Every structure is written in structure tokens, then in C-alpha cells.
């Protein structure tokens, strides 16, 4: 990047109107607001059912100043391909075609269409905001819900299975750009989205997105919780280009350092309250092993 994004040089132009229906303290609101700043006006959005559908407004009022087509749940990747196909057919260049979906819409019901678009090498940006459950329908487990999390469909013991690693699945398609980001690090997110706009082919950005009602924490802690996920080494910020994974910003700074125990992250959220200490230990072990690997690779 020529100019590093700073709070001061970030554009004041807003593409999202206030007074929309997002929950108080919504992580997606931050991701959406900052992401659209990076994408800019010359953008077309493709959105399946999700919190974003509601946040974008009920007919006939839209909260977003970017053209958008709402599509069926399973079809986002294909619909984005269709928009790009039309742009090519109509000889319209220079428009960012951006699919913007939740974790369920991306990794569960939408993965077939997304996989197809990646395999075909469609010239689209796909942004997944991962709030780790079906929040729009009232907090049901999804493929990306972490192990041990209480949801309305894992109400007592918490989810038994591990979180599905969507960015790794997408990266396995061999596409040119895969990145992870967090609502708690808006400038890192901004730079990754901005970088994506300068590339072509399928580009995928997976954004960890805290959700106060879904994760059961007070609205003021959205940034704090998001930061803890990164600082404990649980959710890592990276880019994958040409098959090479590079940690970025806040995660990169953790290399070779002592990380905060993941328990700190669990303790500030109601959704982890049924975790038994044994599982906490297991989960900490997994994080430690992962970082040992990162550190080893760093030394090579």
C-alpha cells in the first residue's frame, strides 16, 4: 500500500445512513461502514439473507448508498458471478462486484455457489462477516460456531464440534487473495479490502465480527471482545497470496510473544459460560500448537 490507512486519512464520506436497524453496538455495522469506505462508490453489492438484509433497510428505504441486489440464501457466489458477467457483456469496467454474506450464507448454505465462483476464477470480492452463528434468525449454531458455544440450537452443552475453517477451504481453491480481518481492527480491515480492489479474480476476506446479543456481552465491549480474540491468538489476521500465509498487523506482532490466555476471551462472553475447564485447556492447547507452528515457520 502506498499510503498506510490512518484514522486521520480515512475518508469522511459515509456510505451507510444512520438510523438503520442494526443492533446497538453491532460489529457488522463497523465492518460494513469501514468496508464500504474502502470499496468506494463504484461498487455493486450482492447480499443474501442475513443481518445485513435487515440493516440495509425495509422497502422502500435503503440505508446504503451503494447499489445492491438481494438474492436467495444459497446463491450469493453465483449471483455475484452474474453481475460480473453482465458488466463484462455490457463492457462496463472498473466496478467492484462485491458479495457480502454472513458465515452461514458463506460456509454452510452458500458454500457450493462460492466454491463454484472461486473455481471459475470469477472477478469478484467476497466478504464474509463471521459472527459465528445464525444471528438474524435468533442465534442458531452454524458451521463456524466455535466449539463449546451456547446457541439456541446448542442450548445446554454448547456446540460439540469445532469451528469450520472457511478461509482455509476457500484458499484451497488456489485463488489469488484470501485474507482474514476483524471488526476490532478497522484499519487493518480497510487496508485488506482496499488491496482487494486493486487485484482481480476471486478475492475472499473473512471478517471476525463480534455480536453483542449473539455472544452475550454488553454493547460497549464489541471492540474489546474482538481484540481479545486476536490477542489471545484464537482468531488470526493474515493474508494468503500465492499460497503463502502471512500474519498481518496485530497478529504478526504476537509472533514470538506471550499471548493472553484464551480464557480471558471466553470469560467476557455469556455464550461460553458452559465451557468446562478441561475443554478450555484443550482449546488453549490447540491455540498454542498453532502458534508454535507459526513461530517455527517464522524462524525458517
Amino acid at each position: 500500500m502506498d499510503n498506510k490507512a490512518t484514522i486521520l486519512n480515512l475518508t469522511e464520506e459515509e456510505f451507510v445512513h444512520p438510523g438503520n436497524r442494526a443492533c446497538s453496538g453491532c460489529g457488522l455495522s463497523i465492518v460494513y461502514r469501514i468496508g464500504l469506505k474502502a470499496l468506494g462508490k463504484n461498487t455493486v453489492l450482492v447480499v443474501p439473507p442475513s443481518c445485513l438484509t435487515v440493516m440495509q433497510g425495509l422497502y422502500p428505504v435503503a440505508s446504503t448508498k451503494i447499489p445492491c441486489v438481494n438474492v436467495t440464501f444459497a446463491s450469493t457466489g453465483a449471483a455475484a458471478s452474474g453481475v460480473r458477467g453482465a458488466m463484462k457483456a455490457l463492457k462496463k469496467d472498473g466496478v467492484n462486484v462485491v458479495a457480502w454474506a454472513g458465515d452461514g450464507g458463506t460456509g454452510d448454505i452458500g458454500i457450493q455457489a462460492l466454491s463454484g465462483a472461486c473455481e471459475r476464477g470469477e472477478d469478484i470480492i467476497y466478504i464474509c462477516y463471521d459472527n459465528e452463528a445464525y444471528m438474524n434468525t435468533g442465534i442458531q449454531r452454524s458451521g463456524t460456531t466455535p466449539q463449546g458455544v451456547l446457541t439456541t440450537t446448542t442450548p445446554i452443552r454448547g456446540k460439540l464440534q469445532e469451528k469450520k475453517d472457511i478461509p482455509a477451504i476457500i484458499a484451497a481453491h488456489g485463488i489469488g487473495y484470501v485474507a482474514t480481518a476483524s471488526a476490532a481492527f478497522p484499519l487493518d480491515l480497510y487496508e485488506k479490502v482496499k488491496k482487494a480492489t486493486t487485484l482481480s479474480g476471486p478475492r475472499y476476506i473473512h471478517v471476525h465480527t463480534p455480536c453483542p446479543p449473539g455472544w452475550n456481552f454488553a454493547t460497549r465491549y464489541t471492540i474489546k471482545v474482538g481484540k481479545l480474540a486476536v490477542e489471545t491468538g484464537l482468531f488470526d489476521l493474515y493474508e494468503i497470496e500465492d499460497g503463502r500465509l502471512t500474519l498481518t498487523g496485530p497478529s504478526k506482532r504476537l509472533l514470538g510473544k506471550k499471548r493472553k490466555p484464551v480464557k480471558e476471551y471466553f470469560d467476557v462472553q455469556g455464550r461460553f459460560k458452559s465451557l468446562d475447564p478441561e475443554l478450555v485447556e484443550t482449546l488453549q492447547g490447540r491455540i498454542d500448537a498453532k502458534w508454535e507452528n507459526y513461530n517455527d515457520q517464522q524462524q525458517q
Partner: protein
Amino acid sequence: MYMIESGNVAAATGVQLARTQVIAAYPITPQTPLTEKLSEFVESGVLDAQYIPVESEHSAMAVCIAASTAGARAFTATSANGLLYMHEQLHWAVGARLPLVMCVANRGVGAPWTVWNDQQDSMSQRDVGWIQLYANDHQQIIDTTIKAFRLAQTVSIPVMVCYDGYLLSHTYMPFDKPDQEKVDAFLPPFTPRHFLDPEDPGNFNTVTLPDIRPGVDGTIEPGYMEIRHNLHQELREAIEVYQEIDREYQEQFGRGGTPLVEEYRCDDADYVAVCIGSLSYQFRDVIDLMREKGAKVGVMGIQMYRPFPDQAIVAALADRKGVIVFEKALSYGNQGPLYGDIKSALYSCEKKPALSNYILGLGGREIKTSQLIDALTEACAGQAAEDAPRWIGLKL
């Protein structure tokens, strides 16, 4: 220019002449040769379009929906379970009022698997709001495909062009390929007033409330129910619109004239067989043979099934002694779907014809001319005037 080609190639040629801009499709028998041909047209440069080889029929329709919303003329094709897999998207496309055209090479649906022809696939999609046109031979396939694009963009409602799998899709027969120049004059480019435009950002297909609601400028905008009501009204109006389009096509190309129903020797017929698709042509030999023996019979093919051209159908059938509906589909647990529709249309007639319903040809079961003669003779003798459908060629 005359060509001898398959029905699928006739359809593909129509799509090419319509200067379709975005094509998405997924292979399914017996539709596949159509999209193979289109991919060849695109790769060879005969057609300047984007061909997107998607990973499912659901995605094929997603591509068409999005491309059309972005302002491009879009097309797909499918059959049987592929069409059923699209079901959700069919509703979406029509609710979004997109002028898509889709060819359906009619095939029976599983389970059990069958690849052969019947019409259960498209008949089971009759209530989604798409316009359904049926072609009886290759000339009608190519002509109807071209007219379908014009109709779709005139009324902003998607159109399904259906033709019998294998019987038409894979059979070769001669047909005339219209001149590109004349097609261009007949079918203007697709230029929607609203599309995905960063200069005029709109949010399409947003959540819509049960009630009406003021917009940003204070104008009251419709609720879900008004939008759906308007769809129904305009779908009804499409009957007349299509007749006008067909008249114009006839003036330009010298073919057409039967946009809603196609009658054969019906003028003085006491008994009329009614069916959809190529069966209505096969019936012509049956009618000729029975006429030779003095029976006053005729056959009527339904060319537009949705919207249902009830007035034209009542006008054609009202004073007959009997109407015999032959169908390659069934509303399971009830009767043939066309039969039910015709019965309901004739309810208002003072002198109601005797009605009979036959189910035949399911899953590609061969239909013999002799069987049709037997059934029609039986019905003319008043022996099949009952609601429960009779089955032809059943081997129990």
C-alpha cells in the same frame, strides 16, 4: 435459411439470434445439447455473450437473476430435476420482475430416475408466476424463443419456453432460421430503466412489509401484497400482449398466428382432443384417420399455458359435445393439471361439454397412434366422461 437440426439446436439458434448477453447453465439430459451449442457459439465468436458454466441449476438461475438486474439479457435452460432445483429461484426471478427466458426440455422427474419425456417438470412450476409457452415442432421452438424475449421484456415477466425432451430436443427436422437483421428489428435491445447502477444506487428485492409505507421522498410505496397483485394483473395482460407480439412476428416472418391455442380440424368438430406439446401434432394423424371414417373430431394444442388463456379456450370448446384432455402430467391425488384448468374455465358455459381425462406417456412410455384412436373413440362414445383420469398404455 433452412436447417435440419435438433430441437435443442433450434432453441440455441433462437437464443443466438436474440443476441443474448449472459448465459448460465448446468448440464442435464435432455437439455444439455442446447447449452453445448451455446457454449460453442460463444467460444467461436458467433455470439458475443458471457457463458458462465455454473455448478448447479440453482446457481444458473442466480446468475441470470443477477445479470438481468445488472441490465443484461440473460438465458438458461434445464429439464426435470434441474428445474425443480431452481424452484426457489423461479419465484425470485418473477418477483424481481426480470425478463429472463429459459428453455425447458420436458422430462419426467425422479424418483425413480427417468430421463425420458413427460411434462411433469414444467407443469409442477405452473404457479410460480412465469409465463409458460409450449412449442410443438422445431420451427415453433426457434420462433417462440425469439418471441419469448420480446414478451419477457415487454411485460417484465420471465418466460419459460417448453418443448418435449427427446421427441423434440433430440429429433432432427427442418426449420427456417430467421435473418438476423429482421430479428434485430423485431427484438430491440434490453434497456431497463433501473439496474444496478452506482450513479443511481437502488437496493433491489429488499425486505417488504405487509403494509404500504412512505419512501424517502414521502411517496407511499406498495407493500408485498400490492407488488404481488400487480404481478398477477400484468401476467393476465400478457395474454393480449403476446397475441400482439405474435401478430407482429407473423407480419415480419410469415409464421405464427396461434399464440394461445393451435386448432386442427376443429371447425365442425363435435369432439376435441386437447393436449400440450408435440402430442398435439402426433394427434393430427389420428384426427385424419378418424375423419376418414366419419368421426367429427379435432385436436387443439395449448401453446400458452400460463397465464391461462381461458377466454380463448372457452371460445374454442364451449359448444362441443365432448372435450378430451390428454396429459403427460398429473396433479397427484387429483387429476391432470390441464384437465382441472379446462374444467374450471368451462364451468361458466351454459352448455357444458362432456369432459374426459387421459394420462399417457409418463416417463417416456411410447404413445401409439392406435392407442390414441381407441381412447378418442371411447371418449366420443361417452364412455369416459368422468373426472378420474384413465390411463393409456398402462401395463399392470
